[in-house]
């Protein structure tokens, strides 16, 4: 096992090298130009360096929000001889870092075929839940259950299945991001740095384009929609997470068991979250299809879209479950919903979900680094 891991690591190091060299080449050109300084954090972070070693490249690639502004503003963008395309070069390295830092290492390979992995994960999960339901009580099509999910799947079974997979996903992501942080980090994060990074994450500051008019999507015009749809998606997800957390507290500490009333806190949170998770992913998918192909790594679109669609299917099936929970169709909606949620959990550490975690770490590093003394004395141009 150890040997296999090291072989995989070697192979991925070789393929990383080309992508990393391209970022280093581009950063040397950008560092001599610097016209993009105002757009995002990548360029000021770049000016604190003269060389771009692997760790620097990993850090900068994850600090890049793939907004596209620097590409449209670039006097050296293709067809110029220098062929500077920062968003594309960064996107390639970003994916390499997810693979490189993934735990277990061999699972990192999943990033390459993520679209397929997500689809398979979700469908296999649905089938598993279907079979599980039949095996448990054989009353999968068993009439109106008045919204009682636990009549289909006992509560403890669900807790056991989801709890273990979720714990693994969190552990896997935590190990990955810790490896990443150890490589890029120097210095301790002060309270102020943590506060700034948190603010930048929660407001998605760098999707504002540096001037508050947003980033680029289909062309050189700025748009706030990418930022808005990200917000719908992110906060929708967080509300759903909060709904589950509140329900857990209700269940274990207040002795209140599901199904909860339509006007109860878990249902309100879940419904709002579900609506956000419908609007956000639909918008992001539309923008993703409209997007200028120069903005990123075309080969990663299956990963982007699979993740977006999965989120959308989770929210639609969740809302469907709410609407039809008092009908015969409840069991079907439940199986489908749980299947998609499980699909997300299974692929979370090896899919697009990871981008948020790595980006947050890069933003924290940026907030730490900004507070450190710059050792370069470039004077003036």
């Amino acid at each position, binding site marked *: 096992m150890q040997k296999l891991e090291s072989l995989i690591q070697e192979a991925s190091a070789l393929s990383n090298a080309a992508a990393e060299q391209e970022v280093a080449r581009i950063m*040397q050109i950008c560092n*001599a130009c610097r016209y993009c300084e105002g757009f995002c954090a990548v360029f*000021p972070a770049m*000016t604190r360096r003269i060389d771009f070693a692997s760790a620097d490249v990993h850090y900068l690639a994850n600090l890049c929000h793939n907004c596209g502004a620097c590409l449209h503003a670039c*006097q050296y963008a293709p067809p110029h001889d220098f062929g500077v395309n920062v968003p594309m070069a960064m996107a390639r390295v970003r994916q390499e870092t997810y693979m490189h830092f993934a735990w277990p290492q061999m699972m990192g390979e999943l990033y390459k075929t993520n679209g397929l992995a997500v689809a398979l994960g979700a469908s296999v999960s649905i089938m598993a839940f279907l079979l599980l339901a039949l095996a448990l009580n054989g009353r999968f099509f068993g009439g109106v259950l008045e919204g009682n999910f636990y009549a289909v799947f006992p509560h403890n079974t669900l807790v056991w299945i989801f709890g273990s997979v979720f714990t693994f996903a969190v552990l896997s992501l935590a190990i990955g991001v810790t490896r990443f942080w150890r490589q890029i980090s120097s210095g301790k994060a002060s309270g102020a740095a943590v506060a700034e990074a948190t603010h930048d994450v929660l407001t998605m500051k760098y999707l504002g384009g540096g001037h508050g008019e947003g980033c680029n999507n289909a062309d050189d015009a700025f748009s706030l929609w990418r930022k808005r749809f990200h917000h719908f998606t992110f906060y929708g997800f967080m509300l759903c997470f909060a709904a589950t957390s509140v329900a857990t507290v209700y269940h274990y500490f207040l002795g209140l068991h599901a199904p909860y009333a339509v006007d109860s806190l878990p249902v309100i949170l879940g419904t709002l979250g579900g609506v956000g998770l419908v609007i956000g992913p639909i918008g992001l998918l539309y923008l993703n299809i409209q997007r200028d192909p120069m903005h990123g790594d075309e080969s990663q679109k299956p990963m982007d879209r699979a993740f977006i669609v999965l989120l959308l299917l989770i929210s639609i099936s969740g809302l469907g479950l709410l609407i039809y929970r008092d009908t015969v169709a409840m069991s079907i909606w439940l199986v489908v919903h749980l299947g998609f949620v499980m699909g997300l959990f299974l692929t979370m550490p090896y899919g697009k979900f990871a981008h948020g975690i790595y980006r947050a770490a890069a933003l924290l590093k940026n907030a730490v680094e900004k507070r450190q003394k710059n050792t370069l004395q470039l004077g003036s141009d």
Partner: protein
Amino acid sequence: MVDVLVIGGGNAALCAALMAREAGASVLLLEAAPKVWRGGNSSHTRNLRAMHDGPQDVLLGTYSEDEYWDDLLKVTGGLTNESLARLVIRSSSTCRSWMMRHGVHFQAPLSGTLHLSRTNAFFMGGGKALVNAYYRSAEKLGVQVRYEAPVNSIEMKDGKFIAAYIGDERIEAKACVLAAGGFESNLDWLKEAWGKNELGEYPADNFLIRGTRFNMGTLLRHMIDSGADSIGDPTQAHMVAIDARAPLYDGGICTRIDCVSLGVMVNKNAKRFYDEGEDFWPKRYAIWGRLVAQQPGQTAYSIIDSKALGRFMPPVFDGEQADTLEELADKLHLDRATFLKTIHDFNAACVEGTFDHTALDDCHTVNLVPPKTHWARRIDIGPFYAYAVKPGITFTYLGLKTDQDAAVYFNDKPSDNLFVAGEMMAGNVLGKGYTAGIGMTIGTVFGRIAGVSAARAAIQHRELVDAKA
């Protein structure tokens, strides 16, 4: 028939088109380049020099009309038309709000531009972002834009513009703005202008063009040949010393070599030829293109030692590196003995002082010709580095004579409906030399004026905004 035809697709042309359209004229803009290369040299710019009476948005302190005028007088040595120059200076204070309305964003100057934070307003993302914003605004306002439409001649009748020709295609308009740039991309013209030097070389053979490949000067030559009054010397241009490995066209800002004032500059004969420490780099860097153009082979080498590392803007290409001065001389194919003597003489002439590359410090040479008046420190700690440089032309100053209304002159008489803006007339204000951001200021101010003048000429009896107000 369209009201106003704008020939050119850079900053000045766009300003003219937008102003003419805002004044109610129908406008057609003809850009010679394909869309991906649109914007001419404006794509390579970064800021404009702006007068201001107090701290204003991105500008610090005060930059008065008189100080601005003094700066211009210094670099041009008096080769400027004072009334037009003062018009440019005064108007520069009111451009920015109009620019912002058309989508241009400004940003506070950040690293590497400390000396310009008072006098210059920086475009967020640089000149290409500005050009993109103007094109978007122009499209929104209904300005028609045609790419790959190089105009090669125009038809005049009794001093009035009638039509422009793209090859055989004839385009009529009621008024016209010429803003098609200088001739710096035309190597044959540069060669003809610069001629042969005393060594029998054609200096222009070694020139690099920092900007667009589309400024062939076709229309400028056509106008001069058709009797338009011209101004300026064809050898005068904004010229800086850039990395000798820069591409022939469009090298832009990143090919500059920023370490000249930290070391010494030697020519192919391994000899120094000018005071490298005369003043701060932003103030002096525009003189080095001409200085290098006057050296044999139009090549020079900026030599630094390890003490200078990390104190200048990172160069786009790695420098030549050597552990000893002897090895460096060999790598540069310079005569070893002469090179060593040059460095030795320089080192011996350096006076110990307090080095500070952010101020005009007291490190200088004594009894050395030419002297190095600041930042003179011995070149003695290896590894040593060298950057070969060549002259890089940004834009040429030969242009058409004009007035406060941006009119083109024929035999000292202004045309009623033909106007000029940008590089095609910048020589009226900038007879020689250069100071950062002045090109964009002239282009913006005269582009705006030309646009209004053309709209006024095209649409009679209509009240129009005054771009000079």
